[in-house]
């Protein structure tokens, strides 16, 4: 009986459910001080001075630092392929030095005996700012005041991807649809805000708690900034309350708090409050697309043109200019276009810097493309489901590739059966019956809409992962690997894989990923890579261990005594693509504009399922985030680039009361890109959800549906679209 493919209960849950988990907020070190970050209220200005005298004199205050006290360094980009010469001219400083560029930017840190006193003192820090014209959106950015003098412009880079003869395709088209579509600024919003606790221990080692996601990179960056050898720094990961892309990317506080611990010779703790989180932790998603779609009278999708901009906020963060790059890769989706011409820019504005948020690029790309596909269907008088059936790349055409010229790698769909997954979606949804229900509802005067979406999602990004398997004297096996847990159950999944590979029970496996000592090198948890990369590295390590151990069942105690260890490194050059689709049924209240989702189904090809329950949880949770993006979430800024949503009063997250049960259909067409056949599953739930909900709302709106071009579809907006 294998573990992979079965519903093994999560090993992580006991401490979480019994209140014995240790999140960074639970940790307490003797003699610890509390840090409070002072943040800019100005969106754009010259920072002439910071007066900290009153703060220093405030009760319980031990230290106040500003840019003058820290190195004049910038936070580097983590992904080499997302770094350009221009991007390095707009990196984020550790504390604002002579300019402030977004509301929420860190300008000073107050350290005091308790967090209340620290906050009291922080209010006394006075900034002398000469206000500059703020750049509030990407449309204004090109012509407006430049944010970074060295860069000289606010458009960091523009990337293009082209295939075939687009001009000819548009000329020959029977119908061309044109539209400008926008996705608003959203944020991953994990339930646990960020936090860092740092202490120099008795051996002189700097220990930092609160790490997550990309510990190794962060440790190396911290070492460079503090001018310490990396081995003198230990980053420890405890329990983590969600990441979604936000947590773990090196932020100023990841330097400032350890720096203060070293400077003061005492432990320093910082726990971000929710207000801070809304302005200081990465935002995402904000994109504007000008699209044109060419289609033939028989419904064949011919060509796609898109010019889009990604709002990066005030600085290029650790993910560099990744966002326009991965959006470009996922715009074409699961259709066999004759041609396409795509161009995307990374643009700076005076807003919170942007990073990746679960299913980055693909969510935005799917929303805009699938709305256009529905618009094309409407123009042709075709059922949107039928239009997709006619255009999904068939299984017989796999592997399918778009050669996009010399300057970019080809887009290759290495396998899968898109039409089969789409059909499975419709079958689970009971599509025919849904249309019947819809007809009956319409006869009753109810406004019900059905919407679908289809997408290809890039995942399993390399370049590699390392794993080591260490047999223990007690008969168990310790598996060490460089990924990270963000609460998504990765320990359980990897233990299942390890158990099967070693031929031992689930309980004989211990997964150790928690600190940089035991696991020297790794790339972290992002881009749905944990299961794919680490899982395959573990398989190789297991193979290595078996070879060293000789024939027969593995005897951990004997191997431990002999010091035998298995090592494996899995390399992955190109990403894999998997396919998914969503179906959503909504009902509109024509009086209030309120949208209620009656039903939502997610279908996804995962390659090979490791833990069905965990996977379903990932897909359903992702779909919930996608529905939230469609109907509620938005981080608006006013013309002065002042943020308007800085608490949960303004930023609306739905609860279980507001959402329908989410149905999940999983199919398995093993990936040819790795020996275990795995594709990632952590993000796919989000990718197609906003598009399906938006398409459903558009259908329910009837003719006015063509004007569904931006999110969220909040009641007031829907009501306005309904007109009188």
């Amino acid at each position, binding site marked *: 009986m294998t573990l992979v493919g079965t519903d093994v209960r999560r090993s992580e849950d006991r401490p979480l459910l019994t209140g014995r988990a240790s999140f960074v907020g639970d940790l307490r070190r003797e003699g610890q001080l509390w840090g409070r970050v002072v943040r800019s209220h100005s969106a754009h200005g010259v920072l002439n001075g910071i007066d900290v005298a009153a703060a220093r004199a405030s009760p319980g205050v031990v230290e106040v630092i500003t840019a003058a006290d820290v190195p004049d360094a910038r936070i580097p980009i983590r992904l080499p392929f997302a770094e350009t010469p221009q991007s390095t001219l707009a990196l984020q400083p550790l504390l604002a030095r002579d300019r402030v560029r977004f509301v929420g930017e860190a300008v000073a840190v107050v350290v005091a005996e308790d967090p*209340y006193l620290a*906050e*009291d003192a922080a209010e006394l820090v006075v900034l002398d700012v000469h206000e500059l014209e703020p750049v509030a959106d990407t449309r204004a950015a090109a012509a407006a005041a430049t944010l970074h003098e060295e860069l000289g412009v606010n458009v960091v880079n523009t990337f293009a991807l082209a295939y075939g003869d687009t001009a000819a395709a548009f000329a020959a088209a029977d119908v061309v649809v044109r539209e400008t579509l926008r996705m608003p600024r959203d944020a991953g919003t994990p339930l646990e805000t960020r936090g860092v606790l740092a202490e120099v221990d008795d051996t002189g080692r700097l220990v930092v708690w609160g790490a997550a996601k990309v510990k190794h990179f962060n440790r190396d960056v911290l070492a460079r900034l503090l001018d310490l050898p990396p081995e003198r720094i230990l980053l420890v990961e405890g329990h983590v309350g969600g990441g979604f892309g936000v947590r773990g990317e090196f932020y100023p506080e990841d330097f400032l708090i350890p720096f203060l611990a070293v400077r003061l010779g005492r432990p320093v703790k910082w726990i971000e*409050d929710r*207000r801070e989180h809304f302005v200081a932790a990465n935002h995402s998603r904000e994109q504007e697309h000008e699209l044109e779609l060419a289609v033939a009278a028989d419904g064949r999708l011919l060509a796609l043109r898109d010019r889009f901009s990604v709002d990066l906020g005030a600085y290029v963060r650790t993910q560099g200019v990744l966002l326009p790059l991965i959006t470009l890769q996922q715009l074409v989706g699961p259709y066999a276009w004759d041609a396409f011409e795509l161009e995307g820019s990374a643009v700076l504005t005076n807003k919170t810097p942007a990073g990746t948020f679960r299913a980055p690029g693909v969510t935005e790309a799917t929303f805009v493309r699938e709305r256009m596909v529905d618009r094309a269907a409407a123009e042709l008088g075709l059922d949107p489901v039928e239009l997709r059936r006619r255009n999904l790349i068939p299984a017989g055409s796999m592997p399918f590739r778009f050669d996009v010229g010399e300057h970019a790698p080809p887009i290759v769909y290495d396998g899968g059966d898109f039409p089969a997954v789409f059909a499975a979606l419709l079958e689970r949804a009971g599509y025919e019956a849904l249309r019947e229900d819809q007809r009956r509802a319409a006869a009753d005067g109810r406004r019900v809409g059905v919407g679908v979406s289809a997408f290809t999602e890039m995942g399993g990004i390399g370049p590699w992962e390392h794993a080591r398997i260490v047999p223990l004297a007690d008969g168990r096996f310790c598996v060490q690997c460089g990924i990270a847990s963000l609460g998504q159950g990765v320990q359980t999944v990897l233990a299942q894989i390890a158990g099967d590979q070693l031929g031992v029970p689930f309980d004989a496996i211990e997964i150790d990923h928690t600190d940089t000592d035991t696991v020297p090198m790794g790339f972290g948890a992002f881009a749905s890579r944990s299961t794919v990369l680490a899982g395959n590295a573990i398989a190789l390590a297991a193979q290595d261990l078996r070879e060293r151990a000789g024939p027969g069942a593995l005897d951990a105690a004997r191997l431990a005594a002999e010091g035998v260890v298995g090592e494996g490194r899995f390399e992955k050059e190109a990403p894999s693509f998997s396919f998914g689709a969503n179906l959503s049924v909504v009902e509109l209240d024509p009086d*209030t504009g309120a949208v209620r989702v009656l039903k939502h189904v997610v279908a996804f090809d995962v390659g090979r399922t490791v833990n069905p329950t965990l996977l379903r949880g990932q897909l359903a949770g992702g779909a919930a985030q996608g529905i939230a993006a469609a109907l509620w979430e938005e981080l*608006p800024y006013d013309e002065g680039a002042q943020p308007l949503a800085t608490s949960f009063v303004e930023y609306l997250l739905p609860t279980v*009361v507001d959402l329908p049960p989410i149905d999940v259909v999983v199919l398995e067409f093993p990936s040819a890109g790795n020996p275990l056949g795995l594709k990632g599953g952590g993000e796919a739930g989000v990718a197609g959800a906003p598009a399906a909900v938006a398409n459903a709302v558009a259908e329910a709106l009837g003719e006015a549906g063509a004007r569904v071009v931006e999110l969220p579809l909040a009641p*007031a907006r829907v*009501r306005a679209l309904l007109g009188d």
Partner: protein
Amino acid sequence: MKPPPFAYARAESVEEALELLAEGGEDAKALAGGQSLVPALSFRLVRPTHLVDVDRVRGLDGVGADGDRLTLGALVRHATLARLQPDIRWRALPAAAREIGHDAIRVRGTLAGSLAHADPAAELPVVALALDAELVVAAREGRRTVPAADFFLGPFTTALAPGELLVGATFSAPADGRTAFAEFAPRAGDFAVACVCVGIGAGWARISVGGVGATPVRAPEAEALLAAGGAEAIDEVATTAARELEVYGDRTADERYRRGLVRTLTRRALAEALEAA
């Protein structure tokens, strides 16, 4: 989001509370359920120098019906109000209480807290205005009653003077009165974008609206139409209420949208009040 410094004292009685409030001076505030005050403290939106905790004062949680009047003590929790199952005359009260936040908030939040906080979108002030509530205010000099129409002066501003404590409210409705409450919020438990309380009986008509201005407001033209036309005139009454009121708008809900909500909610509340009449 830690509160600014404050001194704290707990009162065992109304008299003690009044003493402590006086001692604390102008910037002393009463704390009951804390469901509005504690978040405001955390956001540092208010900075009282003294908090006088009245949450355990006895004798302020009574619910008493007496003919055409219903008296509620200051510390009646929203959860208690929400569980009441009165006849149609007082139905608007539990209906409104059920809309306040979530269970956890309702278990602690109090009637006086809601009325004294005077959020322009809050539910209970709207009902208080519709049902001609008489609010009982205690001061060291003695007690006075303030009609709801004179109590709500502006956003988060009431007729309570520093040192005074709201100790109860008495609501009125005629014997044949039928009341209802309707609200629209973006998610379950959210603050209302707009809310409406209606009352109708022989020669008695009340339409009170929240979320459209600085305080809850009545719609006199619509009330007159309602008194004259009854059930037949629901649509016209709703349209009139939406038209006659001063309605503000903001980024999430503009004026036009709010007027539409007033119309929809008035119609729904009236339909409910008159159901099986």
